[in-house]
């Protein structure tokens, strides 16, 4: 068994291992390292009751109700389906209707969430406030969320 023959076998074995590994990893990377689920994803793989879960989406327009000091109720949606959220605590100053948000909380039975933490998610558009006023003045301002 000369050295080169041994090394050749080991090269073949390593290539087989590496290709199998790449296939395994690429095939199922998507679902599991997830920071948050969208409401549709959550509903698809059937709710997990009272298990800590993170949901990301947009605050539905005109669904924001301020019940009392620091307790709020709003709907979170990803333009497909939506979930009702109860939250009491301080909201980040970026948070308002139509804004992207990530919620950590527990699902109680009829598909609404008691949130323990609310993050405001900033999308990637930066635009000076001045231009926004002009656009609003001659009402070209339209908020098209995908």
């Amino acid at each position, binding site marked *: 068994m000369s050295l080169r023959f041994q090394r050749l076998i080991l090269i073949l074995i390593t290539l087989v291992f590496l290709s199998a590994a790449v296939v395994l990893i690429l095939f199922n*990377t*998507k679902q599991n*390292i*997830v*920071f*948050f689920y*969208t409401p549709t994803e959550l509903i698809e793989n059937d709710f997990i009751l009272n298990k800590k879960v993170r949901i*990301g989406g947009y605050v539905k327009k005109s669904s924001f109700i301020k019940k009392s000091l620091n307790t709020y109720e709003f709907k979170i949606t990803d333009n497909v389906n939506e979930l009702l959220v109860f939250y009491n605590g*301080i*909201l*980040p*100053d*970026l948070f308002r209707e139509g*804004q992207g948000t*990530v919620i950590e909380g527990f699902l109680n039975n009829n598909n609404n969430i008691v949130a323990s*933490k*609310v*993050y*405001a*998610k*900033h*999308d*990637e*558009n*930066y*635009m*000076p*406030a*001045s*231009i*926004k006023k002009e656009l609003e003045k001659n009402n070209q301002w339209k908020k098209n969320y995908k």
Partner: protein
Amino acid sequence: MFNFLINPYKFNKFVDIIFKPLVILTLLVLTAGLFLVYFSPLDYQQGLTVKIMYIHVPSAWLALLTYAIMTIYSIIGLAFKIPFSFIINKAIAPIGAVFTILCLISGSMWGKPMWGTWWVWDARLTSVAILFIVYLLIIFLNQTFENREVREKTIAIFILIGSINLPIIKFSVDWWNTLHQTASISKLSAPSIDMSMLQPLLIMTIGFSMIGVIIAILRIKAEILLRKKFL
């Protein structure tokens, strides 16, 4: 033309020529950047806090760029056996570490008002923290081995193994839906950042990278002198 990047003597000659003008140019660029940032408009969503971006984004890019440069140099050093590349690796490791810690601190300062928390365990932030730990390990490894040849080769191989982290950082926002927003500049369509904010950002990036280059030049020259003493 480019072999001052590989040959220490040519590097010294080239550097002596361009060092003084480079320092003056950097001061100019930085003052221009300072004014542009001061007069840059507030963001329609965040208002004043967006100004942290002018430190956070350049230091993030330069942290990744420094590691990419170190990876290229370790490949050159190992494959073509050029000793100068190991000198450069040793010299620019701390610069990358400083840029990474700058990016982490400015990022978390920006996160508190925007997201509502100093630190959140998501893919982009954790992988940048791992990059910082890799930088620290490289700096510590530089002090461990007695034998120079073993030390250089081990660190070069370690940098190569650690470079798996670069694509993870770059594409972590696109692969997994993370709290950190996707890239504003590299989108194929028009960049979703307004022109009046893009200019100061680019100026600040150029300023930061020139500071990095100056410090790198000083450290590499010091390293060459150190190496000559032992040679």
